[in-house]
């Protein structure tokens, strides 16, 4: 009980607001179709909250111990995917584990973040060996994910890893070097992309060139957002959503439903909630007693931020279409549960920073 009371109140309140907004928006997105989607998501919320609370009780030391096993397990799943993965829309991304359908790439994001936090908790990224090892544990899963193919998640993985490298104090000339070599990387990336990925990128650059094909998603979501105006069309009144002009409206494009029905007002509310969430996580990171906890929070914040930016950027036509969910709003069990678990970790970091642990020695990486 004592532990629960030590949870960060601001983050808790924002989470409640996001949950309410998410559940309402999802209802608006599916009420004219398959309502069981909404019911399932509510069960995922319950499950996620249980996990969230449970994780808050797990000492960070324990988390540190499981970083390698989780990472290796996720890597194993990724390796299994080409052999036993479910084929959906031309890509193998899902693993049927009997009880649940798991998306190993989703698991890997968090596993990598955990491992990197653990790795740099006791090491400085300024040595070539440390940096190369970190690069290796990032690039191997990213490559596997890109081969599924799921370019969006692979990029998220790379961006999250880079953020953590920066936070852990990388040398700036390496950053400059990375930026300098990026055109070469982009060229290699482009050549290895699948056709559907290329058309997505191209249609992002000029959506009107193929209004019924690849550009259709972006055009329709743009229309939905723009037609919402300042105050929106009203709850469950969005015509783009209601009449199915908006594709994927309960998953990746759910932001357009919110923007159409709630207008700029709802959009502003959501962005403020996100801003508070991310900044609160970073505040907790800065107050953390351990480098591990602090890096964990930075990693989690960066993944959140990337999700938010990539998703909204994609739906509003600023970025190409990549399959990234909108945190706490999009339908999807594994994404929601892992995000709640991650927030649980953040809470734990906050709790531990409030506890006076008598045997704590400065400089000890895992305490």
């Amino acid at each position, binding site marked *: 009980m004592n532990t629960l009371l030590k949870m960060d109140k601001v983050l808790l309140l924002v989470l409640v607001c996001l949950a309410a907004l998410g559940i309402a928006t999802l209802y608006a997105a599916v009420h004219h179709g398959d309502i069981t989607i909404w019911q399932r998501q509510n069960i995922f919320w319950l499950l996620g909250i249980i996990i969230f609370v449970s994780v808050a009780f797990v000492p960070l030391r324990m988390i540190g111990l499981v970083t390698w096993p989780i990472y290796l397990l996720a890597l194993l799943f990724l390796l299994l995917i080409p052999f036993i993965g479910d084929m959906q829309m031309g890509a193998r991304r899902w693993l049927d584990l009997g009880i649940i359908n798991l998306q190993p790439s989703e698991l890997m994001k968090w596993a990598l973040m955990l491992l990197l936090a653990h790795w740099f908790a006791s090491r400085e990224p300024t040595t070539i060996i440390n940096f190369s090892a970190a690069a290796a544990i990032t690039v191997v899963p990213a490559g596997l994910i890109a081969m599924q193919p799921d370019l969006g998640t692979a990029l998220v993985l790379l961006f999250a890893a880079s953020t953590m490298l920066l936070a852990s104090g990388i040398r700036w000339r390496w950053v400059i070097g990375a930026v300098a070599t990026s055109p070469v990387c982009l060229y290699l990336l482009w050549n290895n992309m699948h056709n559907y990925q290329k058309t997505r990128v191209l249609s992002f650059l000029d959506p009107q060139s193929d209004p019924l094909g690849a550009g259709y998603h972006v055009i329709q979501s743009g229309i939905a957002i723009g037609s919402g105006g300042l105050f929106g069309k009203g709850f469950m009144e969005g015509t783009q959503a209601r009449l199915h002009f908006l594709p994927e409206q309960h998953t990746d494009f759910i932001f357009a439903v919110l923007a159409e029905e709630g207008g700029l007002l709802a959009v*502003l509310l959501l962005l403020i909630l996100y801003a508070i969430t991310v900044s609160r996580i970073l505040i907790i990171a800065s107050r953390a007693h351990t480098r591990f906890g602090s890096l964990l929070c930075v990693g989690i914040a960066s993944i959140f931020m990337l999700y938010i930016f990539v998703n909204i950027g994609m739906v509003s036509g600023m970025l190409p279409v990549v399959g990234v969910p909108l945190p706490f709003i999009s339908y999807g069990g594994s994404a929601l549960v892992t995000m709640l678990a991650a927030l649980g970790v953040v809470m734990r970091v906050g709790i531990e920073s409030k506890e006076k642990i008598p045997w704590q020695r400065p400089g000890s990486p895992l305490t």
Partner: protein
Amino acid sequence: MAILLLLLFARLINLQFYQHEGLLLQANKNRINVVPLLPTRGVITDRNGKGLALNHVSYQVQMISERVEDMDKTIARLQQLMAWSDQQVDNIRKRIRRARSDRPVLLADKLEWQSVAPLAARLHHFSGVNVIAGTHRYYPYDELTSHLVGYLSLAGPKDLRRGYLRTENVGHSGLESTMESMLHGTPGTQQEEIDAHGQRVAVLKQFPSEMGKDVRLSIDVELQEVASKALGNRTGAVVVMDVQSGELLTVLSKPGFNTNRFITGLEHEQWQSWIKDIRKPLLNRTTQAAYPPASTMKMVAGFAGLRHKIPLAAGRTECPGYLELADRKMRCWKRKGHKHVTLHKSLVQSCDVYFYELGDQLGMQRLVDEARMWGFGEQTGVAITPESRGQLPPSVQRLRDGRTRPWYRGETMITAIGQGLSTVTPIQMARFAAAIANGGKILKPKLYAGSEPTIIREVDVDDKHLKIIRKAMRDVIAEPKGTAHWALNWAPWSVAGKTGTAQVVAMAQDEEEEKLAKKTPELDRHKDHAWFMGYAPYDNPKVAFAIFVEHGGHGGSDAAPVANALIRKLAQQESERANAL
């Protein structure tokens, strides 16, 4: 982080504030579908309210191809059920390939309930296929009124430019065409909300269409039926006109064609067979075709002779059966000749020699002027298009090199008996008969019931002259030697009229026609055309008529009996009306 969030926010302000109006418009364009509501076409009835062109409920078979599970199987089963030919199936497949897979494609339309019923009962086995009720034009009298009423066809490029919709029908011949603006009505629109699959979700707004106006014709379809029966399967035309109002009671051209075939989808072969048929079923013989007037022109010569006080008109001459002109013999139809002939006798017995002489003394100019006065050589202005003017010879002859020369005497002579260059349409002939009956009023033929008479001109004709000609026309029937005595003397009304027998030198135009003519012996292309025109009753004229039988033989024996049938019917109708009162 703050930069990223601000970037997003800026983008969203751009979309939701600056681009809001344009994008809202697009959202509405997405969901709002404006569907035309086609007006119900006005109905055409005859003077007694009998339907000539009606709107019948009919059925369409439509398909949304993306909802069809197994296209080949579905089409095969539909073919079996609907009894489609392989060619029809090919066309249907083409249409399906060309159309969007989420929009309905028309597979077959204008179907009767009997033919869609088997499909409608099994519709649940045919996913993506639907049967939809609508209306189509139906012509109860079909062939009988085919030229008069005409038919509809789907709007063509010209009609689209005039603002018609692609799915609309437009009158393309007969009254359906000339009364199009009245019959058509005004289309309305309906704003529908559709979803992304193009399915209607709700009706938002409706601007109802305005029905087309119904048209009641002056035509008496029963009388037309009588005329048709009397003509039998001969080729020809019958026009019956009210002598006072100019209302047309019968406008019949034979052979007719099947107007309902146009509506239920005309096959190429059928159309070709109508076009190639040497009986020319598509030709409206009442207005479109002009024929030599033959002896019916003798009244014109008579009026001219009286008007210009030619002594012969009041006197007499000898008919030995021919008239010698230079080295030629101009024959009278009666080889033995008519002996002494006056104007009266030559009209009653249709002596040619008398009129050769009268024409010779009048000259071409005066003959043609008289004919023009009585309404020949000009369109009557009847609302049936296209209308021929017929033809009158010019007052001098134009040669091919552009020079002119006066007519030879022989040419003037045959013009006086209605041969040679002049041609007239049956409707002009009926109007001529009406003008004689009503005292010289040239009327515009009317097709609406109860319309006011329009007098185009009144011929300046002496009552005495009228009486002379009328008496002669009466005696064509009343005198035993009159050319129509045997056909009409016992008709219930006293009839005045004139026969005409136009010589035809219709040579086959090419070998193919010759073969065709030989194959159809009933169609003797060298037989004369038969005319009969006149009015009845003699003392109190009510109707005028013109009967034309193409290659019919003789006016008296072949055309006049048709008049007898008409007069019987009219008299019967009058007595029925009297009894009803």
